[in-house]
Each structure stands twice: as structure tokens, then as C-alpha cells.
């Protein structure tokens, strides 16, 4: 399918054709580290929000000088490598956040050692309640003012609502695609859907929505997939590519649901469209399905996972993380503790390296998990 090829290219090239075209038009691109950074605010400031990823990195030698490989995740090291080797010179600014120690330090080192014309750090609270909501709203206001000053624009409520609606449309289309995975024989592979999702973080939303609509249209004429050996859900962190999904498919499984950052969490709920738009963004981003970094929210994450398991007829859950990820790593302790309440087996944690050196080992373990499911 041609549209899938286009989305695949957008997801796998860095900078991709959309970024190059945007720059050719003389417009600005701002990189952002974490899905808790609202793209709507940047879009309303007429800049292209482009998620910082490690796509294209082959090694991490320069980054390792500053981010010790002995304890730091390869993903931010790969992104930092691309900054230090000049790959990311096309971005005009960057927004960091305290998503995790690895990510925030990579952002800081980037600013210190490479420099960048515009940089902003967004403090994202680690818990959710009304007092914290007010704090996050204040943080977003500071971010908005900084964007306005730097890019000589004024972000009106109308512009912000327009951006919110645009991204909500993007979320709605992605959710429609995701819901297609409920079918016994879906029209897409899990790896394809994941690639589509990743493309969304590095494509202007207007262009992306057109591609999603085209994809939904084209899928109507597609032959369903074969019935998989096992319908699986991924819970944790897998990074910004579909390599893990493909490993699952290589051994006959199919990823039909997830609780991941580059996954459903980011688009499952729309941003509010009434009242104060900044407050709506703050509330929607904080109260959406949470990342494991949010303390006191384990029960809500378990409920989200259980709902996914039931709605998507999941046979088993693959617990995943990158090496050195404490936040997702420790979630496994609690997930295994609650496994019996979830109705399906959970794998032992599957630990990945971002640059994919361990594909063979992972494939063996995924296949063993599928065999375990089949034998039950």
C-alpha cells in the first residue's frame, strides 16, 4: 500500500521528507522529548513539533562520553549522538521534560555541549490531583509565553482550539485504526500500526491526518491477516520503532494492543475542547492513561490494561522495557503481583537494547511465551 510506504518513510527517516519540506518553506521546527509535552501549543505557535528520537543512530560513542553507558538507556544516548554528530541541526529549538533521568539529562547535555537557539524545560508533575493540575497549567503558561516571545507570535485561544481540534482528529483516526485490531483477523500487522503511530510524532498534523484518512480508505480493500498464534499486548516501553512488533510477528504472534508511550496512551483520550484551552490541555495530558512515571496511578494503569485485554481479546501480555529503565522496570514487580487478576499470563520482563543488538534472544523468549500460552 502506497500510503503505508509513505508513513513508513516518515517514521524511519530522520530528518524525514516532511521536516525537509517544512524547512524548505522557511518555517521553524521544535524538537520535543516526551509525550507529556503538548504538541498543540507548539503547533499554535506555527512551529512543527518533531519528537526527538534515536532514529538513524548506529552507535553512541560521542554521547557515551557524557552519558555513561554503564547505567544510561541507549535510547536517549542515541538521540544525543544524533545531536552531537549534527543530524539534528535542522531543528530550531527543543523542549525537554522530566520524563525520566536519562531523557532530562540528555536534553541538558545537548543544550550545554551542542547548543540550540531555543530551549525550554517543561516540568511535568509526577502525580495527579487538582493542586498539581494548577501547577502544570502554570508551567504550560510559561511554555506558551516562551514560545510566543521566541517565535514572535501570539497564541490566541482560537488558534489553540484549532490546534487541539486538529490533534484530536489525529487521535480519533488513530483510535479507529487501533480498534481495527479487535477483529479476529485484522487488516494490519501490529508492526504496521506502530509505524503509523511513530510517523505521527514527526509529521505535521494536517499532512498526517490526510495520510490516516487515506490509509483507512485503502484498508477497506485489504485482505485480512492470517489468524495469529497468539494475540498479544505490549506493556512498558519499546522505543520509537517497530522492531519489537516484527519479532513478535516473526514467531507467529500479533500485537493487537499496548500500554506504551509510542502507542495507545498518547491518543486514547481527546483533549478537552471547552473552557480555558490551557487548562483543558493541562487536565487532558495529566489525566490521560498514565506513564509509569506517574506515582500513585498503578491501579489506573492496571485498569487500562485490563480493559485493553478484554476489548482486544488479548491472549498474553509482554512486559517490556529498555535496559536501565527504572520506571518501567519496577512496574514489572507490581504487574507480576497482579497477574492473576488480569485473566491472561504476563511474560517475564523482556529487556531490550535500543539499537537492536539482542533481537535473537528476544525472539526466543517471545516464542517461548507464545508456547506457554498455547499450552494453557
Amino acid at each position, binding site marked *: 500500500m502506497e500510503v503505508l510506504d509513505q508513513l513508513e518513510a516518515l517514521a524511519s527517516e530522520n530528518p524525514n521528507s516532511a521536516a525537509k519540506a517544512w524547512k524548505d518553506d522557511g518555517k521553524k521546527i521544535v524538537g520535543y522529548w516526551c509525550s507529556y509535552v503538548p504538541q498543540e501549543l507548539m503547533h499554535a505557535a506555527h512551529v512543527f513539533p518533531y519528537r526527538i528520537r534515536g532514529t538513524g543512530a548506529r552507535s553512541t560513542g560521542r554521547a557515551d*562520553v*557524557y*552519558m*555513561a553507558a*554503564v*547505567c*544510561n538507556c541507549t535510547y536517549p544516548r542515541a538521540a544525543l549522538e544524533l545531536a552531537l554528530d549534527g543530524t539534528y541541526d535542522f531543528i530550531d529549538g527543543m523542549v525537554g521534560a*522530566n520524563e*525520566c*533521568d*536519562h531523557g*532530562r*539529562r*540528555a536534553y*541538558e*547535555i545537548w543544550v*550545554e*555541549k551542542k547548543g540550540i537557539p531555543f530551549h525550554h*524545560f517543561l*516540568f511535568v*508533575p*509526577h*502525580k495527579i490531583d487538582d*493542586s*498539581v493540575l494548577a*501547577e502544570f497549567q*502554570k508551567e504550560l503558561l510559561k511554555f506558551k509565553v516562551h514560545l510566543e516571545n521566541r517565535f514572535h507570535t501570539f497564541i490566541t485561544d482560537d488558534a489553540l482550539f484549532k490546534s487541539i481540534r486538529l490533534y484530536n482528529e489525529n487521535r480519533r483516526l488513530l483510535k479507529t485504526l487501533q480498534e481495527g485490531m479487535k477483529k479476529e483477523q485484522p487488516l494490519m500487522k501490529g508492526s504496521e500500526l506502530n509505524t503509523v503511530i511513530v510517523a505521527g510524532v514527526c509529521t505535521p498534523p494536517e499532512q498526517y491526518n490526510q495520510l490516516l484518512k487515506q490509509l483507512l480508505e485503502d484498508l477497506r480493500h485489504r485482505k485480512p491477516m492470517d489468524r495469529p498464534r497468539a494475540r498479544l499486548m505490549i506493556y512498558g516501553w519499546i522505543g520509537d520503532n517497530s522492531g519489537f512488533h516484527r519479532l513478535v510477528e516473526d514467531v507467529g504472534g500479533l500485537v493487537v494492543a499496548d500500554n506504551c508511550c509510542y502507542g495507545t496512551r498518547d491518543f486514547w483520550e481527546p483533549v478537552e475542547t471547552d473552557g480555558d484551552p490551557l487548562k483543558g490541555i493541562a487536565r487532558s495530558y495529566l489525566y490521560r492513561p498514565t506513564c*509509569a*512515571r506517574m*506515582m*500513585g*496511578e*498503578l491501579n489506573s494503569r492496571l485498569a487500562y490494561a485490563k480493559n485493553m485485554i478484554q476489548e482486544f481479546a488479548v491472549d498474553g501480555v509482554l512486559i517490556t*522495557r529498555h*535496559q*536501565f*529503565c*527504572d*520506571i518501567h*522496570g*519496577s*512496574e*514489572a*514487580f*507490581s*504487574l*507480576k*503481583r497482579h497477574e492473576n487478576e488480569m485473566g491472561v499470563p504476563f511474560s*517475564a*520482563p523482556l*529487556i531490550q537494547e535500543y539499537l537492536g543488538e539482542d533481537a535473537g534472544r528476544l525472539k526466543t523468549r517471545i516464542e517461548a511465551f507464545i508456547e506457554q500460552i498455547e499450552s494453557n
Partner: protein
Amino acid sequence: MASQKGIAFRQFDFSRKPDLKIDLIQLIRKNFMGFMDRVDESKRWIWQPSLDGIKALSSAFDDPENIVLHHFTVAPEIIYAMGLKPLCLEALSFLAPVEHLCAYVDESRSAYVPDHLCSFISGWLGMLHLDIIPKPSAIIHCTQPCDNTVAAGAILADHYDTEMFVLDTPYYDTDEAHEYYAQQIKQAFKYLERMTGKKLDIDRFREVMERSHRAYELLHQINELKKRRPCPIPANPLLRQTSIAMYGLTGTLQLVEWLETHLADARMRVEKGIGGTYEERIRVVWNMSWPIFDWAIYEWMEKEYGAISVAYQSAEPFYMPRDISSADFDQLCKALAIRNLNSSMGRQGRGHFEGFIRDSVYWCREWGADACIFAGHLQCQANWSAAQICKEVLMDELGIPTLIFTVDQVDPRVASQDQMVAKLEPFLEMVSENMMRS
């Protein structure tokens, strides 16, 4: 290698798994008292914070109705002000015998706690998994200094199936950020009132804060004396005890009394012009962790190189006391917020790495360091990612070299004493030679 130049290193026996479902407090007490029996009577006061800490743990274990579990960078003043008993989880890891602690760490790994989660935390997670820590009446956790803390908090609340209060630590150090944290301290009091049925007594809160402030005043006076040569603080045991004291005992009378003794001892040494046991030739700042499984490593440095440790990250809280004599409740909470956000490790870990670097520069400059050692606790990603830049800054601004190497503060299986010696020896040789040349 069992010894280096006449200094005997500890031997550990990891060949068999110790019994872990035990009365941990009794084991800690027995282990510590065995150690104290070997300490010269004139020096026993140095270890008083550990002894007070063990007594506090024991009292808490015996009175679960009044226990409040807390992370070591949560200000215990909050709990003391409520008339409740703090039980610092990391203190259990710190005080447990090394072989036992390592076995608790292993126990946590068997329950899917990742092997890169801080061993201080993994130790108590292993204890938690074996159900040897009594269920508390409340839990106060926080989000500083690192992801390890955040990760462990979720497990903690889930294990006890109870509500936990989280102090969300800000990234910035602005007045607005302090106010955000102060508001949460107020909420923490309400949470404790709800969970325990006790009421906050403002007079007790003020008294606790006055003691806390007095402790910081004394610490500043002690730190001023550190500038003298030779350093009048007999190095490693006192730094370590300062760390324990300033984390766990702030707000207590015991801490004030101990710091008064500490200051008097330092003044006496200044007057007499004496330092520690060995002649001071090199002044060293440990700007990150300090392995605790064998004190002999520091004695070896002192004896062999005259390398005296004048600062260690976890013994260097930065809070500047202010006048709170007429402070109202809001002002007391604000003062406590600022105090808490400046606790050791929290201050350097929660925000931009510049905080870690400026503190390292301050310690090295103020206390006349000749060398800096970044003994990187394997699981401290936030500080590890500041190490190289800090090394560059220390050389550029102060001409001080930095040694960076990997350790685990509590687990000698990661880097043994001999492996540490192998890193320290050439570095200290180089520093000595450079100093002689200059």
C-alpha cells in the same frame, strides 16, 4: 588481597544465603553493638547518630500504629512535628550487615525488581517482599533525587495496599517552586492527620523546626572549620555519621546535642592544630557516592597517601537557616520546603545538572581540595550524566583532577576494595606527584 600496607580489609562471605526472615532490627543492633565494642571509648560519640537511628527504628518496629514510612530525602521534621515515628526505609539498607543486605537485594531481583535499581532501595524492596517490615499507618514518599525513588514508590504503596502521599519535587529552585513544595507539605500534614487520627500541634512543629535550624547553624560552623589545615574533622566516620544525622534526625534534640559535641571536638582540634590519625597531604572531595561496606578503604588512603576526605555529597546539605522565631504556619512550611529541597542528593539530583556541578565546585574550592573523586554508584543515572562535564569544569575552574569509576555503595560484589584500590592508587600517585612538582 586481604590487606593493603598494613590496613586489613573486610572479608565477606557470599558463599551461602543468610536467613532473611529474621528480626532485622535485632540483627542490626547486635551487629552495630559488636562494632562499637571494638571502638575506642573516647571516639564512641562519633557513632551516636547511628545508635540513635537504630533506637528510632526499633521504637518504630515496636509501635506500628505510629510508624510513618518515608524516603530518606523526605524531611523527617514533618513526621516528628506530628508526634509520629519515622521509619526511613533506606536506613534499614544502610544499617543491615553487608551479606544480609546483598541477599535482600538478590531477593528483590527474584521478584522482578530490575538489577539496575539502586541497591539501597532494592535492599528494602527485598525486605518488603519477605514481609519483614511492619505495615505502617502512613507512607510519605517523594520524587527526588532520581527515577529509582519514583519507581520504588509505586511498589511500596501497592505492597501495603494503602494510600501513599507523594511530595512532588520541582525541577527548578525558584520561589514559585518552593511555594509548590510548601503547599504539598501542608497537604502531607492533612494526610497524616487523616491516616493516623493525630492532630498537628503548631507549637511542636515550631519546636521541631527550631531544632532543625539549630542543627544547620551548627553544621555551618563545623563546615567553616573544615577550611583549616589540617582539617579538624577526622575524616571518614564523621562525614558518614553527618550524612545519617542530617537525613534522619533533623528536628530532634539528639542531633543538636551530637553536633554540639562534634563542633566542640573540631574547635579543640583547631586550637591544638591537629587533624585526624594520619598526616594530611592531599585533601579529597567525594562529590558522589562513598562506598560504605568497608571503612578501611579510607584509612588506607589516609595512611598511604595522607589523602583526607573533607567532603562527601551526602554529608553536605546546603540549607541556610533563617529566623523562624515569629514564623506562622505558612512560613514554617515554606522554610521546611526550602530545607527539604536542599537536602543532600535531592538538591543535586532533582534539577538541572548545573546544581551538582556548582556544589562540587563549591566543596572543592571552599575546602581547598586537591582532588575530586566521583565514585559512581552504579544506579545513579542522574549524577552519572553530570560526571564528565563536572570533571571538565573542575579542571577548567580550579585545576583539580577528577577520578571517575564505578562502585556500588553497599554491594562489594560490584567493585571490591581491591578493585577500588586499583583505581585509587594511580590517581593518588599522580595527584601526589603533581603536588610535589608544584
